């Protein structure tokens, strides 16, 4: 544990060497000044106090010199404190910021499949408290390094003063280190457990607040509190376990230097009697042990933080080292106008789960609209996300205009194809920000055109600040249909060459839908469309229908053809009509 902890620290030092040096120099200076101060105190007692007390005479010049020295040391100490604290603090904050950027950068580049395996709450704590934990020992690190310098200097000065008194230090300092080591070893599992429980509590809270509406409508507040309480109690117990251990070690570590002072007194008296040393030496050394007590604790702080640091670092590294990035090629899609989409023998399953798609093949010819029809759970959304390469197939291939998706650059793909997902996602941003997404070429005019096309212009005009209205986290201030139109407008604003609509017009009036699909066939904003739909009106607008059953394409053709030839298809799309006849 100690070794791994030190390696994490080494990594930190290599990353921010300059700030570390500032901090280390500051705190070494601080330590040396502490030793200097002790010797000055000893010297003052021996050479100023004792003579003038004996002679009842005051050497004023000397006295002012002493005062000046104390003040000088104090001034230097202020400088060293600034160096030590700012160096350490800035180092810690910079490291935190750097790793937060790195971790969130990974979040953005890891594929949706990875995201599905990791809860939002966990990812939040990776970027927040795990990064914090990893660099927790940085704050006291330069202090600890300075303390080590100080201890070495103290040992040297002790040996220069008197070897017997030096033996006290030679016993005491290793004892302090040893105690720290035992402490960190025993603390480690407790800290790791506490950190795990913190993560759990955070995850439960996150999920519970996320589902607050369900909790409320079912009146389960008390049960949720009980569920949360179980984890909170465990967290409490694990923190109390940490506290017990600290209660044992902290006072011990506190009193060790005091033992040193007493030993110095005892041995000093003996050495003094044999005339080996003077009063000033005893005072200096005793003073030294008194002031050492506090800085020596800094080592304990670092060592004590190491287990938590390693735990946090491991979790951070797991994100940074996560694999499975979708590799993008550098292919582009030259040409303009609608693009062709082609699925060829595509198979797919989620993780280790059952196979969801079986040899799916179909084509959306350039400029055409293809409807994807199938029962709930038949794999339509899966096909939609494969089409814009949110996931890659297990086998088979998908291509746009003859280029395989993995060969395309991300920007080329994102520029050409747009997916409107089944569940609309709205950013905590203004209406304009949500639609433009700062994409080049999407100016206010494009935003307005897209809103008009998605029939969202009227309700946006009714919002308090129009385009500048902030819509709240996940668009809470909008109705479900309004959110859907906003995401539709977002897709249209980019003038895609291939548009994938995953049941994205369910809340839109059919006439509106017809207008949208019609506009996509018009000359200026032409696009090929793959549309997941249940409505017959929508399906009828399509040039072709691909009918799915349990992940297999069981029929392809025009709506009229399928109506005549495929019973399953007919049952699905005429369900409402049939129900009505039965009434």
């Amino acid at each position: 544990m100690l070794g791994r902890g030190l390696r994490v620290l080494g990594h930190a030092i290599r990353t921010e060497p300059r700030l570390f040096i500032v901090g280390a120099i500051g705190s070494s200076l601080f330590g040396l000044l502490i030793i200097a101060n002790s010797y000055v105190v000893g010297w003052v007692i021996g050479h100023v106090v004792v003579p003038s007390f004996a002679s009842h005479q005051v050497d004023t010049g000397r006295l002012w010199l002493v005062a000046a020295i104390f003040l000088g040391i104090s001034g230097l100490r202020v400088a060293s404190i600034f160096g030590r604290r700012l160096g350490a603090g800035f180092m810690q904050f910079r490291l935190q910021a750097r790793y937060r950027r790195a971790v969130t950068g990974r979040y953005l580049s890891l594929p949706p499949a990875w995201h599905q395996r990791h809860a939002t709450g966990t990812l939040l704590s990776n970027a927040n408290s795990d990064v914090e934990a990893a660099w927790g020992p940085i704050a006291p690190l330069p202090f600890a390094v300075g303390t080590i310098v100080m201890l070495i200097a103290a040992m040297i000065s002790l040996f220069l003063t008197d070897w017997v008194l030096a033996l006290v230090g030679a016993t005491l300092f290793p004892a302090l280190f040893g105690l720290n080591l035992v402490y960190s070893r025993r603390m480690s599992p407790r800290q790791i457990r506490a950190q795990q429980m913190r993560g759990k509590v955070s995850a439960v809270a996150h999920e519970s607040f996320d589902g607050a509406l369900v909790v409320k409508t079912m009146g389960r507040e008390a049960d949720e509190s009980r569920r949360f309480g179980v984890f909170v109690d465990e967290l409490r117990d694990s923190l109390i376990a940490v506290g017990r251990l600290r209660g044992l070690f902290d006072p011990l570590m506190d009193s060790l230097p005091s033992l040193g002072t007493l030993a110095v007194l005892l041995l000093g008296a003996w050495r003094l009697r044999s005339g080996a040393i003077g009063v000033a030496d005893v005072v200096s050394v005793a003073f030294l042990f008194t002031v050492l007590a506090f800085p020596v604790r800094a080592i304990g702080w670092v060592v004590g933080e190491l287990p938590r640091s390693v735990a946090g670092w491991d979790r951070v590294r797991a994100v940074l080292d996560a694999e499975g990035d979708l590799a993008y090629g550098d292919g582009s899609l030259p040409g303009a106008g609608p693009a062709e989409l082609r699925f060829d023998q595509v198979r797919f399953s989620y993780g280790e789960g059952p196979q969801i798609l079986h040899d799916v093949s179909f084509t959306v010819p350039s400029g055409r609209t293809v409807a994807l029809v199938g029962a709930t759970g038949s794999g339509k959304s899966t096909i939609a996300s494969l089409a814009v390469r949110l996931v890659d197939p297990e086998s088979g291939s998908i291509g746009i205009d003859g280029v395989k998706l993995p060969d395309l650059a991300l920007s080329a793909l994102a520029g050409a194809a747009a997916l409107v997902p089944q569940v609309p996602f709205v950013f905590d941003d203004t209406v304009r920000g949500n639609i433009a997404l700062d994409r080049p070429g999407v100016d206010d005019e494009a935003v307005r055109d897209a809103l008009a096309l998605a029939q969202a212009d009227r309700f946006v005009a009714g919002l308090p600040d129009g385009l500048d209205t902030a819509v709240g986290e996940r668009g809470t201030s909008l109705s479900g249909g309004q959110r859907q139109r906003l995401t539709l407008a977002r897709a249209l604003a980019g003038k895609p060459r291939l548009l994938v609509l995953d049941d994205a017009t369910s809340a839109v009036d059919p006439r509106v839908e017809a207008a949208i699909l019609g506009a996509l066939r018009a000359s200026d904003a032409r696009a090929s469309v793959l549309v997941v739909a249940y409505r017959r009106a929508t399906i009828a607008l399509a040039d072709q229908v691909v009918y799915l059953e349990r992940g297999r394409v069981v029929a392809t053709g025009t709506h009229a053809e399928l109506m005549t030839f495929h019973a399953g298809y007919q049952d699905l799309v005429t369900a409402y009509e049939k129900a009505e006849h039965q009434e």
Partner: protein
Amino acid sequence: MSGEGTLATVKRGLALSPELRTGLGGTIVLAVLQMAGRVAVPIAVQQGIDHGIRAPGGPDLGVVVRIVAITLGALMISTLCGYLMTRRLFTVSETALSGLRQRTFRHIHDLSMLHQQSERRGSMVSRVTSDVDQISQFLQTGGVQLLLATGQLLVSAVVMFVYSWQLALVVLLAFGPAVGVIRLFQKRLAEVYRAVRERTGVMLGAVAESVVGATVIRSYGVAGRTQARLDSSIEDLRVAQQRAMRTSVTSFSSGEIGAGLALAGVVVVGVWLGADGALTVGQLTAFLFLVTLFIQPVQIATDMLNEAQNAVAGWRRILDVLDVEPDVADPDDQGVELPVGPLSVRFADVSFRYPGGPIVLSGVDLTLDARRKYAVVGETGSGKTTFAKLLTRLMDPAQGEVLLSGTPLTSVRFASLRSRVVMVPQDGFLFDATVAENIRFAEPSLTGEQLRAAFVELGLVDWLDGLPQGLETEVGERGEALSVGERQLVALVRAYVADPDLLVLDEATSAVDPATEVRLQHALDLVTRGRTTVAIAHRLSTAQSADEVIVVDAGRVVQRGPHARLVAEEGSIYAKLYASWLEQTRS
């Protein structure tokens, strides 16, 4: 509220967590005893020098040994006291804070839906996690240190006065300016630490959004923009942290200057006094030790006061939430039970507006009879969901009143209301658990067979059997390992097993395919016969099978009656809606 002083916050916090004071007296006694042990050492040094080392007849080892032995005993007692004190402190503070976490958690759930939605989730989560952690960290490290430091400060001040009141005055004078500076800095510190906590919240919000919206970000190729936003929120936090650091170091170093002044002053004045014979060498030496014992706690206290600002900022955020009275409150003991049997509904001239928004529902006045099935239709944004939320008392009307079987909703105890009235919201939220656990959320006592029976009754057992692990299939976070329509099926079964007398469905099957929906509709009609059902539907198939249809347009009820009659009203909104429905389903 946010302008309140540090002390006021701490007082309020302590009032809300009285457990924190459990056994405080004993803890303080232990802390003082631990302190006393530390002060014993300089006294031992003084006694040792004056009576042992500088004894008239040369160093007297016997005296020194005796002094050391006594001090050793004191030190051991002090260590023991330290152990007992830390244990007590951890137990008491963690117990109290776990209570605070739970109370805050419950309070957040008790807040009204609108209030919950006005807060970011990340920020609510931090109230029960990192904000509490700040307090606990402070109480256990800072708090102990502050307590010990105060004890040490007092004890060493008293001892200093005993040794020499003149020198003690010198020390106090030397620290005077420092204390002034530190006090001056407290306000700025409070500000900079508040900024740190706020920016932490903003950063967490940005991270959460980039995680939740990961697929959208990817499919629009806007990772660059998102990263830029993340980076700037991360940088903003770093800048705030560094500013807080600079402020606290400046405040801290003023104590250091005080220390230098004190040492210099003590030596100068001490030598003058000693030359006059008013002081022994041992006394002056002890005094120099005492000064360091006095300096240390001043430095620690300054440091801890800085940390305290951080903790107080967290505490304040929690208290601000706890202070909010839930505006849609449970009448609890003053409330009544809903009358037994099927429920009727009455909206008496109800109007509603969202905070700061325009009127969304106006003058809705209608009665729904018990045991009947109603469909609510209207364009998107017309106010249907708002109607459902008022009906289930997720919100209270701005004007008018909602009554169930003649009982005003506001007077109904939540325990009664929530068990008899259940709504299936537009997006069927599922917990990250199995299908079975998600359904048991509504009725924990259900056995596996009963769960299965519910699927059978709703005609969904084939779907259930198609799942890889049946009832034990994990649904993923927010149910994302199921297709959207499948999530809605589970949410519906969950509401069904709750066995309500009034069932409100808000487009609960909008993502389900027509064949399944029709089957489900029939099954639901059978099993909910005899109860009151209000179904908001975008698909008019639901409306056709309802006993009565209520048509909402721009926040008003414009038509109501059986489907056949409304369709016949030529030129009416419903006739148009129906024509368009026919167009979508028949072409």
